[in-house]
């Protein structure tokens, strides 16, 4: 699974009939600074996550199980809405190559 922040929704009118009624979210997986990274993933959601929330998503068959239909033409779905997470930064600092984690110019 991965954890990411919901940044929006996607709508499609012309689509596979199986997808009727299914909500799609745009999620940015959290990078090792625990901030939304540059990747973006579209996931199906039956849990009811909203923009700004962090969610845990599964890929593949687990994603189809998460929408209660293994015949769905999808391969990523929300399985949980995150309350909180705790990261021990010292372990991340120990495994990240220095050049891959530039100090971010944050406000």
């Amino acid at each position: 699974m991965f954890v990411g922040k919901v940044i929006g929704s996607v709508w499609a009118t012309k689509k596979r009939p199986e997808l009727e009624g299914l909500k799609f979210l745009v999620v940015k997986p959290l990078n090792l600074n625990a901030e939304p990274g540059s990747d973006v993933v579209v996931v199906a959601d039956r849990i009811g996550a909203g923009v700004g929330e962090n969610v845990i998503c599964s890929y593949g068959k687990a994603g189809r199980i998460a929408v209660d239909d293994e015949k769905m033409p999808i391969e990523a779905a929300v399985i949980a809405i995150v309350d909180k997470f705790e990261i021990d930064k010292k372990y991340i600092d120990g495994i990240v190559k220095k050049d891959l984690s530039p100090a971010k110019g944050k406000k």
Partner: protein
Amino acid sequence: MEQCLVVGKIWATKKREELESFSLLMLVPLNNKSKSKSDNFLVAVNTIHARVGEKVLVAFGSGARNAMGNQSLPIDAAVVGIVDPEVEN
């Protein structure tokens, strides 16, 4: 499977009911030099009481669901082993 470092824990109240009572870990996949090989966190079910700071083996897909003994779970990653410190390379 992949070798990963456990770097934290994650909690969710609103979730698929099958996940009730599962403990979820935040991990970072490692390369053969024990450095991160992903820019993102991996979330996996903790099946063997692994702790933060330990290097673990993570199984994906059906293998992860086998670790839970249930193929109908909406999970795709599970911690299935803790790497022995003395055989780290």
